[in-house]
């Protein structure tokens, strides 16, 4: 192990690369010819993003001077403050398009749910490193962790921000897995997502998935009760998904899921976004239509093209080359961060870095998956690229913490 204090500049360069792509895309999506079709408050998005990036740079540098112990010691406090702010938001927040998730702080509107991600990660990491490893026999630690994650999710649901909540749930299995949760149970945890996904596509696919997962779990754990649980669980998910799809979900939610499974059913209605997003990306071809030349982008065929559908802008205007570079940058970032975690000796730092990595990864998968119609459309931003100050700041803070922990490997090790 290299114990030399070394700042991970490569991560900084990737970070700069990503937000530069973001700035270019946001500029095109809001300042290009499309500007004439946009309401005026959207037109300021670019300058606002620049401002937030400037602030974030300051914060990133600032965090490097904080003692690494602070993150672990202050984790519960941050978490607590975050929860209080979330509750305040529910009652006093600013309502934007149906969700009350913004808190006005001076001149800025802050999305507390975003900032809460960092606090939750720190709290969960802190809690888990203070316990013995999670095991199949002792699930109490795991359950507490689940609660740490579920509280903000419930508050997010109260704010009508279900999309962000999904990110937390996506992160949970990874955190538990890292903390020692056996493979089989980890797989069981993510099985509802997989089974549900395939059930929406086709019930038969859902059943096959459930069976395959069960077989995997059997071979991984070789425990009868777990296998049976998996089978029952899978069946429940399939039945639940079918019932939800046909009975429980609101018509617009159902339409969205149906549109994902078969967009051509209603091309001008719920299928519209899926079709237009795919068309934007697909028509980009190898090298794209050029900066501010994307017809889908500039003629306003894409919804939320500065946030949730920003990948379409990149794909349309910069083609496979642009989109590919972006995907590679993300993958390099994730790999770099995983390497950081693997070379770290302190479990808290490891867990924080892993969590941050997968938080980004979940955003990455859901956002690009939505844009490319691999997943139903779930409106969450692409880290560092999408417009959104709170998200950018939070993501940067988390990256800064990772860099700090990495940089201070040795000093943290002492307290091991």
């Amino acid at each position: 192990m290299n114990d030399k204090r070394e700042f991970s500049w490569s991560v900084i360069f990737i970070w700069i690369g990503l937000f530069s792509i973001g700035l270019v895309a946001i500029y095109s999506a809001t300042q290009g010819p499309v500007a004439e079709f946009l309401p005026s408050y959207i037109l300021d998005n670019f300058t606002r993003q620049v401002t937030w990036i400037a602030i974030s740079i300051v914060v990133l540098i600032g965090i490097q001077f904080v003692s690494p112990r602070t993150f672990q010691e202050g984790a519960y406090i941050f978490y607590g403050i975050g929860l209080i702010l979330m509750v305040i938001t529910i009652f006093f927040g600013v309502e934007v398009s149906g969700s009350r998730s913004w808190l006005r702080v001076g001149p800025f509107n802050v999305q507390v749910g975003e900032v809460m991600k960092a606090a939750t990660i720190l709290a969960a990491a802190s809690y888990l490193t203070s316990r013995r490893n999670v095991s199949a026999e002792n699930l109490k630690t795991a359950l507490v962790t689940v609660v740490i994650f579920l509280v903000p999710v419930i508050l997010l649901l109260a704010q009508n921000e279900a999309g962000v909540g999904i990110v937390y749930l996506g992160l949970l299995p990874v955190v538990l897995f890292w903390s020692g949760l056996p493979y089989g149970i980890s797989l069981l945890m993510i099985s509802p997502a997989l089974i549900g996904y395939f059930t929406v596509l086709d019930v038969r696919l859902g059943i096959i998935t459930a069976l395959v997962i069960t077989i995997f779990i059997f071979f991984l754990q070789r425990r009868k009760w777990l296998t049976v649980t998996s089978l029952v669980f899978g069946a429940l998910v399939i039945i639940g998904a079918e019932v939800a799809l046909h009975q429980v979900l609101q018509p617009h939610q159902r339409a969205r899921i149906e549109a994902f499974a078969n967009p051509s059913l209603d091309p001008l209605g719920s299928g519209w976004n899926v079709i237009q997003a795919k068309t934007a990306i697909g028509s980009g071809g190898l090298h794209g239509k050029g900066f501010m030349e994307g017809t889908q982008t500039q003629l306003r065929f894409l919804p939320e093209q500065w946030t949730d559908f920003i990948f379409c802008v990149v794909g349309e205007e910069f083609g496979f080359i642009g989109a590919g570079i972006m995907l590679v940058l993300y993958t390099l970032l994730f790999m770099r961060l995983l390497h950081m975690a693997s070379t770290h000796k302190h479990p808290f730092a490891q867990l924080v870095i892993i969590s941050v990595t997968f938080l980004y990864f979940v955003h990455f998968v859901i956002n690009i998956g939505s844009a490319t119609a691999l997943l139903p459309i779930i409106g969450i931003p692409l880290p560092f690229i999408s417009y959104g100050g709170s998200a950018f700041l939070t993501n940067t803070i988390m990256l800064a913490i990772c860099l700090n922990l990495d940089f201070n490997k040795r000093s943290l090790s002492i307290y091991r």
Partner: protein
Amino acid sequence: MSNQSNSNQVKTSIRVLQGIILFGFIVMIIRVFQLQIIDYETYSPISMQNSLRMEVLQPARGLILDRNGTILVENQPIYSITITPSKFQMDKLPLLSQILQIDEEIVQERIRAAQAYSWQRTSRLFTEVPFEVFSAIQENAWQLPGISHQLESKRHYPTAVQAPHIFGYLREASPEEYRADERIRLGDRIGKSGLERSYENFLRGEIGTEYVRVNAFGQSLGTYEGAGLNVTPIRGADLITSIDAETQALAEKIMAGKRGGLVAMDPQTGGVIAMVSAPQYDLSKLAGRMDADYWRSLNTDPNTPLYNRAISSRQPPGSTFKPFMGLVGIEMGLVTPQTQIYNPGFYLRGRRYNDLADPGYYDLELAIAKSSNTYFFWIMDRIASRGRLNEWAELINDFGIGPLNNIDLPAERSGIIPDSTYMNRTFGERRWGIGDLMSLGIGQGMVSASPLQMAVATSTLANGGYKVQPHVVSGIRNGDGSIDYTQPVLEKISWVRDEDVETLKKGMFRVITEGGARWRSLIPGIDMAGKTGTSQNPHGENHGWFIAYAPMDNPQIAIAVLTENTGFGSQSAAPIASLIIEQYLTGEVNRQHVLDYVLYDFPGQLISITQETDD
């Protein structure tokens, strides 16, 4: 747990997580590769279609001009509001209704109709809206998604010339029509009658296409010049007709309120100078947004205004048939111009055939001048008795009476010149005899012709034995300004001799100067040759006929007039023809008393005359 095992576990777990991330990356990159590289050909056109809308540029339909270049039919812009139902938001209905200044309920009804037609296709919501409404829609397009506007045109008739039977009307192409011709699109209006129909392919021009950049709301953002996809429309060719606008207008004015038809043509070329079928209808009510009630009334009117009497009616030509009988009689060797036939006041052949002409000896000239029946019964008697009916029919056909003359208008009908085949078909084999044929000699009975046929035949008398090809269009002016002229076809009828035509001319001159027609048909300063006729009508009042040409020494106009249920041709058709000739040759009408008579006293004087033969 030991350090070592912990370290191993970390390594394994990191591998798993790296695997997950790598898997995610591979799935994403494959998906993006699939969309952007493999399916590029699928999505690129979709995005193209998304952002570009092909708009059809309608070419300007060709104009119709008279012989002096006066525009008779032109195009007038009309403004239409269109809707694409799938893009329209129903909550914008009050705003739309307010801008259109039309009741919400009516607008809603129209929107429903458009929805019923197609949700995706653009259809006309309202046509011929005032310009103010049109521009208000233009200004508010941004808040009315799915609503657009369209500049269209309709036919406009700027002069006094109505001539619905010449010009014809346009209507939307039927499914069969637009399926049969790829240049016709759904909703296109094409010529359904008259010149509009027969010259549809010339008048239509070629549609152009323009690609317009649009945004997701369907708002137009201007022309897209890229890729050279735009095609400029080619305007339709103009029709230069042989119509004389002033003569035509006068003819229409005279024929208003009457029933009948007339055709005036240049006997040297066959070009139609004026053509009227009365009653007429108002083309302007059928242009643009069709007046449905008016259309219904036209179709149910017992006077059948849509029927073109000038080229489609079949009436016995009466005594106007006699000059041609004379020529045929000479050619068949039955008479010479000098042959004198005695008229005792009747002709006997199986029964007594009356002759109102004074008793005495008649040669051809006198027989024409006095319209003696006996002379022509005598000829017909010999034709019938010697079984030369078919020979006779063929010779008559040479004048254009009987067969189709192929004028450049739709719905022309042939006349009837009975031959043995016809007689056999009508009466049965051997079940007809001389008695059935006698009246043919004086243009009654089964003989029937249209004003067009009589005008063509009269032209032959006027030009000294040449058969003309009747036509309305004398030239087609192409988009580039070049003009393709119709070549007049003059075909000498080989057996017609000039001296015989001369004899007829003298007789026909005396019809005008000595006959019953002289009171109202003499034109001071113009020598005219004419022949009156009365067509026996077993169903009611007889029909009046008149054929004429003028000036006699250098004929420039030949005319045939038929007025239905007006009795003697000398009192009905002849004055009308004289006025038209006067107008055409002198450019004005000086005989106000004749015009007044024709316009105001005409019907009253012509009731309840029942006579077997004519004047």
